[in-house]
């Protein structure tokens, strides 16, 4: 909720009108790699079809996603159908109660939209970050695989560059694309604790105590892991959009906990 609120507030402030699809379905969360079972793609295709229907009404073909997993699945399915028209035909015949998908939808992640509109965001800034230090954690699914990634899958810098432009200082550390443990949190939390603690350690060791992410599951896993350290560590994990909304003065959109934390940070010491 906090992610959605701040993202919509930022985009609204710089002139976008964000329309939630009238109907949407679970994308499947993970892109199915099974080559002979198209049924696993149906959820994502229905989302694309609904976006297509509404694209006529609202005259836009851009489908904005916040969740990196949704972004990953929708974009990969979109690419797959573009690459294999026969598969699109097969699936269109199955979904015969819907209009066929005509491949016109562009799946975008909110990071892309923010980066494209950096000038407008800079103009609406009301708070100067003054070089406060932040660590950025990308996770997996907005940068991998390469075909759909929004930046270099090995060493993405798109978010750091964006934050630097706004006035933050970002740190470099080796684990910004290491998997946090993802959905293993449901099966074996220790996998998550192991991976996420490696990530968090690297950041804390660099004397940074603010970490931003763009994925609700990464955020959840990292926050869960913070409490598992034997020696208490000081680190706050929030969404990229939280901090951008904050410097744009969009206080009402920010979760109260995050807001009071950011107020403290900006009124006293820098983040280091």
């Amino acid at each position, binding site marked *: 909720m906090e992610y959605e609120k701040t993202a919509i507030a930022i985009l609204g402030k710089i002139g976008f009108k964000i329309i939630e699809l009238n109907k*949407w379905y*679970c994308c499947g969360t993970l892109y199915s790699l099974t080559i002979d079972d198209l049924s696993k793609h*149906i959820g994502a295709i229905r989302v694309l079809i609904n976006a297509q229907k509404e694209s006529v009404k609202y005259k836009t073909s851009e489908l904005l996603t916040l969740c990196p997993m949704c972004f990953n699945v929708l974009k990969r399915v979109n690419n797959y159908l573009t690459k294999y028209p026969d598969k699109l035909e097969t699936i269109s015949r199955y979904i015969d*109660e819907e209009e066929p998908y005509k491949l016109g939808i562009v799946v975008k992640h909110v990071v892309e939209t923010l980066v494209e509109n950096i000038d407008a965001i800079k103009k609406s800034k009301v708070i100067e970050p003054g070089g406060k230090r932040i660590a950025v954690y990308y996770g997996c699914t907005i940068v991998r695989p390469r075909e759909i990634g929004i930046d270099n899958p090995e060493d993405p810098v798109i978010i750091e560059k964006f934050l630097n432009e706004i006035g933050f200082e970002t740190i470099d550390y080796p684990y910004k694309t290491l998997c946090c443990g993802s959905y293993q949190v449901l099966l074996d939390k220790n996998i998550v604790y192991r991976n996420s603690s490696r990530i968090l350690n690297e950041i804390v060791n660099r004397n940074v105590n603010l970490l931003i992410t763009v994925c609700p599951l990464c955020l959840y896993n990292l926050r869960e892991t913070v409490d598992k350290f034997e020696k208490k560590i000081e680190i706050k994990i929030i969404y990229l959009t939280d901090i951008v909304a904050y410097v744009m003065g969009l206080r009402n959109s920010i979760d109260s906990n995050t807001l009071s934390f950011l107020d403290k940070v900006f009124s006293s010491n820098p983040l280091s």
Partner: protein
Amino acid sequence: MTTPIATSERKSSVKTVRIYFMNKAYDVPIGLTIMKALEYAGYKLMRGVGCRGGFCGACAVAYRKPGDYKFKTGLACQTVVENDMYIALLPYSPLIKPRYNIFEMKPEAGYVLKIFPEVARCISCNSCSKACPQGLEVMDAVQSVLRNDILKAADLVFDCISCGLCSLRCPAEIRHIYLFQLLRRLAGKYLLPRAKHLEIRVNEIESGKYFAEIEDLMKKPIDELKKLYSERDIEPE
């Protein structure tokens, strides 16, 4: 359907169609519902038959028609027989009924998924909606649960008649009937506005407001009761 009518063995002027039930052919008069056609053919339906008006959900049926590859579903009391129709009655779908305490729940997806984890397996194939004789947006209801919109989901399945056809078609093995019952209960208990007039009436009854009137009625002779009944106030529609 314009297919020529099958030759009837019965010497009758009534036009008939040939249907197949339990792998046996029957010639039945044109225009009958599946339910009436089976009764015409000699079957005595003891179960899987209820209101005969398309509203109780007891008589789910599956069938195929020549020239159409689709597997079709409906209600036996509402579907009219066609020539060369293959029919199976599906009056019951085996679904394990969960037990839960609604007082210990909240109208949130997490509570629903705890009882019906299979809901998360929905792949949006829409087989459920295609099977629904009520024409409900069954898949949208299931997906609304995943979106944590319990009120929307409950609203979409308000007219569910629990025939079970959706569950028989579902590749995710969702127990729709019981899931939807829970959604309506959660919506009724936690989300929809309370019916104030109902609470007032229940309180009136419990406090004994109508006891004397009932006692009085119980003592009246049958003729007077009949007269009172026919002269009673009827609310305008």
